[in-house]
C-alpha cells in the first residue's frame, strides 16, 4: 500500500503525484520506472520515476489520462492508497560527462526527460533542453526544466507559446546554427522520437530514446514489451527502457501499442458511464 501525499494537476489531463515509497526513493536512479496498481482489479501501469526524495521517502510520478485506469487514477485524492507499487525497474540511464547534450521532451514525455536532464547536468554536462506540447496549456514542467538546463527552448505546435512548431524543428535549427551536439536524449510520443532519430542519423549524433510499450510483469517474464532494436528482439523492461534511437523499429512499437485500442475504449466508455461491473 502506497499513500498519495501530494497531487497536482499539471494540465487538463496530466497529473503529478507524490507517493510514499521509501525503499524505492532510496534506491532509484535516473531513467528507472515503477509499475503501479490501483487495486485488486487494476491493471499494471508502468510509469517513469520523475523524481525521488529519499529523506521524505517519496517518489514523483506524472501521468496522462488516456483510458479507464489513468482516469480512475486521476480521480484519486491525497491520502488515498495505491494497492501496489513495484520498483525501481529497468536499467538506469548511463550518466556520465559527455559535453554538450540536448534533452528533448514532448508532451508528458517532459516528465520522463526531466530526471535525465537533472542527472546529466549534475554530471557536468552542458544541457540544452527542448520541450514541447500541442498547445501552451498542455506544457508541463517548464520551471523545473529551466532549473536543470543551461538553455531551455519551448515549442508549441500551435504557436500559442514559445517557438511555433515541433521540437524537431528546434533541434534542426540548433544543428544548422552550428551548435556542437555530442548526444541527444529524446523522449515523447513515438512519432516525435522517430522524427528526431531520423533527423540526427545523417549527422551521426548519438540519440537515446526511452520507450513506453505495453508491459505486464515488467521483470522480463512475459515479453509483452518486446521491441525490435537493430533487428533483434529486446525486452524494454529488462534490456531498456532506453535504446539507441537509430536502431529502434518505431513502426513496430506503434502497432504493438495499439493492440488493445478497441478493448480499452470499451472499458473507458463503461467507466465514464459509471459502470461498475458485476
Amino acid at each position: 500500500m502506497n499513500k498519495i501525499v501530494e497531487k497536482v494537476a499539471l494540465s487538463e489531463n496530466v497529473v503529478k503525484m507524490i507517493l510514499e515509497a521509501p525503499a524505492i526513493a532510496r534506491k532509484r536512479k535516473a531513467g528507472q520506472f515503477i509499475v503501479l496498481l490501483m487495486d485488486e482489479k487494476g491493471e499494471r501501469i508502468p510509469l517513469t520515476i520523475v523524481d525521488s526524495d529519499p529523506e521524505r521517502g517519496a517518489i514523483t510520478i506524472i501521468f496522462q489520462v488516456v483510458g479507464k485506469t489513468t482516469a480512475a487514477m486521476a480521480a484519486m485524492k491525497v491520502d488515498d492508497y495505491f494497492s501496489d507499487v513495484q520498483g525501481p525497474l529497468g536499467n538506469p540511464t548511463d550518466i556520465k560527462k559527455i559535453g554538450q547534450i540536448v534533452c528533448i521532451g514532448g508532451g508528458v514525455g517532459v516528465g520522463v526527460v526531466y530526471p535525465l536532464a537533472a542527472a546529466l547536468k549534475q554530471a557536468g554536462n552542458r544541457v540544452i533542453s527542448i520541450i514541447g506540447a500541442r498547445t501552451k496549456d498542455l506544457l508541463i514542467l517548464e520551471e523545473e526544466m529551466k532549473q536543470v538546463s543551461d538553455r531551455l527552448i519551448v515549442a508549441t505546435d500551435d504557436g500559442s507559446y514559445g517557438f511555433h512548431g515541433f521540437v524537431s524543428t528546434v533541434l534542426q535549427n540548433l544543428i544548422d546554427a552550428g551548435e556542437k551536439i555530442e548526444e541527444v536524449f529524446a523522449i515523447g510520443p513515438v512519432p516525435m522520437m522517430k522524427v528526431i532519430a531520423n533527423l540526427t542519423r545523417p549527422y551521426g549524433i548519438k540519440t537515446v530514446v526511452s520507450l513506453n510499450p505495453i508491459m505486464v510483469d515488467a521483470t522480463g517474464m512475459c515479453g509483452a514489451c518486446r521491441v525490435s532494436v537493430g533487428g533483434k528482439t529486446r525486452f524494454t523492461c529488462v534490456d531498456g527502457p532506453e535504446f539507441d534511437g537509430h536502431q529502434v523499429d518505431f513502426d513496430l512499437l506503434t502497432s504493438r501499442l495499439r493492440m488493445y485500442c478497441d478493448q480499452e475504449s470499451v472499458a473507458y466508455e463503461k467507466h465514464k458511464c459509471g459502470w461498475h461491473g458485476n
Partner: protein
Amino acid sequence: MKNTSVDGMETEEKKSKKEKIPRQQMPEQTPGVRVKNFDEVPLGYSEETAVLEAKRCIQCKKPGCIAGCPVDVKIPEFIQAITDGKFLEAAHILKETNSLPAVCGRVCPQEEQCEKVCILGKKGDPVAIGRLERFAADYERKTGQISIPDLPAPNGKKIAVIGAGPSGLTIAGDLVKLGYAATIFEGLHKAGGVLVYGIPEFRLPKAIVEAEVDYLKKLGVKIETNAVIGRIATIDELFAEGYDAVYIAVGAGAPVFMNIPGENLSGIYSANEYLTRSNLMKAYLFPEYDTPIVRGRNVAVIGGGNVAMDSVRTALRLGAENAYIIYRRTEVEMPARKEEVHHAHEEGVQFKLLTNPVEYIGDEKAWVTGMKCIRMELGEPDASGRRSPVPIEGSEFVIDVDAVVVAVGTMANPIVPATTPGLETNRRGYIVVKGESGETTRPGIYAGGDIVTGAATVILAMGAGKQAARAMHAYLSGK
C-alpha cells in the same frame, strides 16, 4: 477359485477384499459446460468416495509411495486417517511434510511419482493418492478448522527467500518450523509464482493458493511483494541487512520465442504473457478487471507441454471457435500430462501434429492473420531419446489465425545472477548447485527449482526447497 476383476485381470479372491473396490473416479464438469467457464474441471471426492478409495490402500509394510514423493509425504498414514474418517488428521499429517497439499493434490504428476510405484498398480490401478490428498486438504480448508502446529522458539537467525513460488514457499515453511525467521521477497504483487500467474483457475483455483499462502503466513512466514531482488536490493545488500542465508527460487521466468519472421506482430503472445494476463490479472473477467486480453477466433498454441495445454484450454474459454495445438512431434512425444491432453481433446482442441510454424503473416495493421507451417516427420532419436522431427521439404501450408501463443519453453531470468558476483551459472544461465543440497558457489546462498533445473514441475521445485532447507539448517547450525 478365481474371479475376474473389473479390468479383466485375474486376482485371487482370498488375497484381499480391498482389491475388489475399483479406483474411484472423480466427478468432473462435462466438457460442453466447462469450456464456457473458468471453474475447476474436476470436482473432488465426496466423503464416501474418499473413504472407499482410501480403503483400497493395503498399508504396505515398506511403502514405495513415500520414496516416490519428492517431499516425503507420509502417504499410508494420511490415507489410513481417511479410512478411519479422521479427515482433519489426514490433513495435518500431509502438512507435516507438505505446506501446499491442496495444490499438490491438483497439479502433481502423481502418475510419474507416488502412484507409479504403488503396489496396486502392478496388477491394476494404483491408489488415487493425489485425489485423496486433494480431498483431505480441501476438507480442512472448507471446514475452516486449520490448525497451526507448535513451533520451536525463534533461533534468532534470518533467512531471505527470493521468489514466492512453490520452491520458495516450501523452504520458508520448513525453515519457520525449525525456528528461523523467513522472509520471502516476491517480485509480483501476489505470492504464489507459477501457481498464480501460470496455472489457470480451471486447474488450480486461486482461492486455494491464497489459502495455502495464508497458512504459511500464519506459521510466521513474512512475504514482501513488489520486491524485485536485484533492483530494490541485491543479495549482498540482504546479507548486509543481517540475513544469515539466502535461497534463490526465482523460476525460469523468461519466455522463449522461436525467432521466426513476424513473431512480434500484434496478437502473438508468449505463453507467460497470455497466462499472466488471464490468471494473475484476471483478464478473462475484462472489463470488470482492467487488464485486457485478445479473444481470438482462431487461436494457435505452439508447443506440447502442460503450459501449451493450459494456454489452448484458456483460449477456448475465452471464446475461440478454433483452438489449435501446433506440435512438431506426435502425441506420444508430448511432454504434457496425459490427463491434460485428454481434457484438451474432450474440450475440442484441434491437434495439428508433426507441424511447425516457420513464419507469421500480418495485415496492414501488423496484426497476425496467418501462420505458415511446415509438415514434419520423425527421424532418428536425439539426445533426449525422442525421435527428432525433420521438416518435409515443400510441405508448407498456411493456417488462418488471429491470435498465437508461443509455448515452447522458458529460460533463466538473468536479474538475480547478473547482480550477484561470484554466483556461477551454466551456459544456459541456470544457477550451478552442488548435488541436492542446493548450495551455490557462494557460501550461504542456496538455489532450487526451475532456476537450477530449467522448467520442471511444481513438486520438483518443492522437493528442492525441502532439500535446501535441510542443507541450510545444517550449515547454519554449525556456524
